[in-house]
Structure formats: structure tokens, C-alpha cells
């Protein structure tokens, strides 16, 4: 290699050697110096190989930046926007880095999963949910992204803990809260409920629109909304019913309810009664054993019928 580290004289070396008894220092110094030269044994990487690797990296960076520039609209912006832009770039850079280095945890349909993150925070994932976090989690940031529903118990820490869920962000330092955010729900609506501490909830990158949610409160935001709803009181036990394998639907459309049932019971529900798809329902089931009894119940209330299929049910008028 053309550039060897010369570190016989570095500060660590002297500090280390000084920790040994005076009688041993010469010997230790000799080993220290000689082991520094062992590294020179490493075979060389040819220059053209390095250049080739560099050109690969350039290609990847350019592909990344095309998509990033589109999002950020980078041009000559005045200073007032610099900070906003920097914040956007940070978020986008994080988003992009996830493409390369994400750790992904999935809760399969019909199952729930509990994860402990590198900072000691725990996350319980509802069936069908996906949690991703950067490989540098707890080093550069404590950012996670969520598609689905999860209950977070965040360890206190200096770095804020941020949940990125379908275009919304939740920021905290140490607290317990629930995020429900399914990308395939109408408007990819995100619902945040707090059971301990407090969180800030806002559309991604627009922290000036943040609402602060306190224990026992819920706020909602969907892609078509200007800002999150004012936090309103809610029954925490009901909102966190899923953690105990109960089912709670708070003014949810049949489409949303059926998707939840699909995930929870790992079945397919073919909703053919399109006219009723957006009718809403508020209902609660304690530890439901099977999906059939729930469907019977919902269909009776809504005047629908259902039949069994190979891998689930068909619901019709």
C-alpha cells in the first residue's frame, strides 16, 4: 500500500507504555513498534481496483441524488430557508440511507412481535407491521420508521427518539406511546396515543405544526390534512387493546376493519359489498378466538352476508 499509518509516536502509544512498570517499558515499546509494522504485511489493492470501486460509488451517489434533488428541490434558496432545507436534507438523507442499511423487523400475519432496540427501548409490533431502523441507530440518531401499529416504550436518552410513519413524525425523549399508521389505510392515516410522558406529533419535516400529546390523549393526521387534530381524550386501554390480543375499532370503516382482521388472523377477506365498504363501526372484542364469529357479528349489524373461501371469506350484500 502506498500510505501506511505511521503511529509509532502517537499519543496513545506513550500513554499505554507509561502504564507498565519502568523495567518493562523498553520491551513493551519494542512490541508496540514492531506490531505496528506487522500491518505492512497486508497485500496491496491495485490502483485501478480502487478507481473502479470509486466509480461504482459515484454511480450510486448520482442515482441517489437524482431522487433526493427531486424531493428537496435544491436550488438557490435564501438563508431563511437554509435551516428548513438542512432539516429536509437530513430527513431525506436518512430516508435514503435506509435504502442501503435498514434493519427490518416484521410481525407476520397472525402474530405479534416484541423488539428491543440497541438503546434499550422496546417496541411491540401488531400483526403485519413493519419496523425499520438505521444500522447506526443510537449513534447518529434514534430514528425508526413504521408501517403498521406499534407500542413504544422509549428509554430516556439525550438523542430524541423519532418515529417516522407514513409522512408523519413523532418525537420524544423517553415515554410510552402507541402509533397506528398503515400505508394502505385511507390517506395513510396515522393515529398516536400516549400512555406515559408526552410526544410531539407533526407532518414529516414540519415541526412547527406539532401538537403535543399527553397521557390519555389521541391525535390523528392523514396525508390530506393540514396539521394533526387537536389531542382528545381517549380510553388508553381500548386503544392498546391489541397488545392483549383484543380488538378495538374506533369509528373505523369496514375496509380498515377487514384489513385488520386479515392481518390479525392471517386470512383473506374479499370485500364485494363495495357500497358498504366505507360504512364505519365502533366495536370491541375481548380476546376473539376466531375471525368467523366477528364477521358474523359485523355482517348482522350491517346487513351483509359472508361465505367461506379457500383462504378466508367473501363478504357480499
Amino acid at each position: 500500500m502506498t500510505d501506511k499509518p505511521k503511529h509509532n509516536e502517537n499519543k496513545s502509544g506513550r500513554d499505554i507504555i507509561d502504564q507498565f512498570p519502568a523495567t518493562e517499558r523498553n520491551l513493551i515499546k519494542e512490541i508496540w513498534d514492531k506490531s505496528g509494522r506487522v500491518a505492512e504485511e497486508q497485500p496491496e489493492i491495485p490502483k485501478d481496483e480502487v478507481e473502479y470501486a470509486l466509480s461504482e460509488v459515484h454511480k450510486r451517489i448520482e442515482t441517489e441524488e437524482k431522487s433526493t434533488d427531486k424531493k428537496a428541490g435544491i436550488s438557490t434558496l435564501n438563508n431563511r430557508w437554509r435551516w428548513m432545507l438542512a432539516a429536509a436534507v437530513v430527513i431525506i438523507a436518512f430516508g435514503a440511507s435506509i435504502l442501503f442499511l435498514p434493519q427490518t423487523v416484521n410481525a407476520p400475519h397472525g402474530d405479534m412481535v416484541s423488539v428491543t432496540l440497541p438503546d434499550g427501548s422496546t417496541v411491540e409490533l401488531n400483526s403485519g407491521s413493519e419496523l425499520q431502523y438505521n444500522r447506526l441507530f443510537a449513534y447518529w440518531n434514534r430514528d425508526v420508521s413504521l408501517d403498521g401499529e406499534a407500542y413504544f416504550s422509549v428509554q430516556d436518552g439525550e438523542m430524541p427518539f423519532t418515529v417516522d410513519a407514513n409522512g408523519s413524525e413523532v418525537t420524544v425523549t423517553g415515554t410510552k406511546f402507541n402509533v397506528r399508521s398503515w400505508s394502505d389505510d385511507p390517506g395513510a392515516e396515522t393515529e398516536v396515543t400516549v400512555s406515559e410522558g408526552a410526544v410531539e406529533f407533526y407532518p414529516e419535516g414540519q415541526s412547527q405544526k406539532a401538537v403535543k400529546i399527553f397521557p390519555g390523549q389521541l391525535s390523528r393526521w392523514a396525508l390530506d390534512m393540514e396539521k394533526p387534530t387537536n389531542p382528545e381524550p381517549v380510553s388508553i386501554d381500548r386503544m392498546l387493546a391489541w397488545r392483549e390480543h383484543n380488538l378495538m375499532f374506533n369509528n373505523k370503516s369496514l375496509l380498515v376493519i377487514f384489513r385488520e382482521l386479515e392481518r390479525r388472523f392471517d386470512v383473506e377477506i374479499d370485500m364485494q359489498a363495495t357500497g358498504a365498504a366505507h360504512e364505519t363501526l365502533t366495536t370491541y372484542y375481548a380476546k376473539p378466538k376466531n375471525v368467523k364469529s366477528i364477521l358474523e357479528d359485523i355482517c348482522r349489524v350491517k346487513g351483509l352476508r359472508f361465505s367461506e373461501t379457500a383462504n378466508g371469506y367473501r363478504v357480499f350484500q
Partner: protein
Amino acid sequence: MKKPSAEKIRIWVEEISKSNRQAFDSLFRHLYPRLVHFAMKYTRSKAVASDMVQDAFVTLWEKRRQLDSNLSVKAYLYRIVRNSSLNYIRDHSSKTVGLEAVDDSKFESSEEMNWQDDAEEFKKTLKDWIEDLPDRQREAFELSRFEGLEHDEIAGVMEISPNTVNNHIVAALNSLKDRYSEYQEEIKNERKGL
């Protein structure tokens, strides 16, 4: 090419944070070979190691605006590469990968050693001794001696305290010292015998 000084690297990082591609390229050319060798110690595959190091540099570029030129970019890159390597080992644990030497020019048994105070021979012996160290001690020691990182940089890479880094290195030196003393003793006896 002369080894760039810490100051030079600091300036590169500062330039990189302002999106200067030339500075990025210089840093890449300087650190890429070392990082590939470093990753190969874990992955034992040059292709995998090269990919990991390239990923690390892409991440570095993406994060350039957050870079702090007072923090060690070396520690940052080594840390990414080490974490990817450990994940790779974890995900491919059916194969026997581990923190082992890639270079299989293992020194033969002591019986047939030609006890000359030959610097080249001794280098190989020393390398074997280092390979025999417990994993964590060895990692810390190699990051210090082979990669030229300072203790607080190693602490950042290994996610341990600088104090623990120090302890690992002192422990490593202690066992190397014992083996070196034995070795010198053997040479003396060998020479007497001759």
C-alpha cells in the same frame, strides 16, 4: 503518496460536508484499501468486503451535511464497516467466518524455526501471537496498531468506553510481552546449544 496528516483529513471532511467531491475522492482513495482489508478480516471475502466499504462511503456522502470535522471520520467509517461485517457474520454463521486472519501464510510450528533474529520472520511470529489474542483484545489492538486509530476512535468503533479500550490493549501487550520473553529465552538457549 505520503500518508495524509490528521489535519489534512480534517480539512477533507470539512470540504466533504460542503459537498466537495474531490475531497471525497481523496478520502476514498486513502481509506478504501485499509477498510477493505479490515472488513476481510471478518468476512473473509474480498467481494463482500468491497461492497460493504462502498456502502459505507455512500452513507458518508449522504450524511455529509451532518459531518463534524472535529469528530473522527475514520472512526465513523470503521464503525459502519465493522457493524456490517458483524451482521454479515451473524447472517452467514453456517459458514465458519469469524475474526480470523485472511492471510493463510501461517507460520509453521516452532520446532523447525530457524532462530535467526530475522525481522521478517519475527513479524510473522508476532502476527501469529496477535491472532491468538482473545477476540475483543485483538480487535482493539489491531485497530490501534494496524489501523492507526486513537483510543477514543476505537471506543467509537467498538461501542465501548475508551477506558475499556485501554484495558484491552494493555492486556494484549501483557500477553504479547510474556510470549516475547519466552521467545527470547528460547533463542538464547538455541544459540547456547549451537
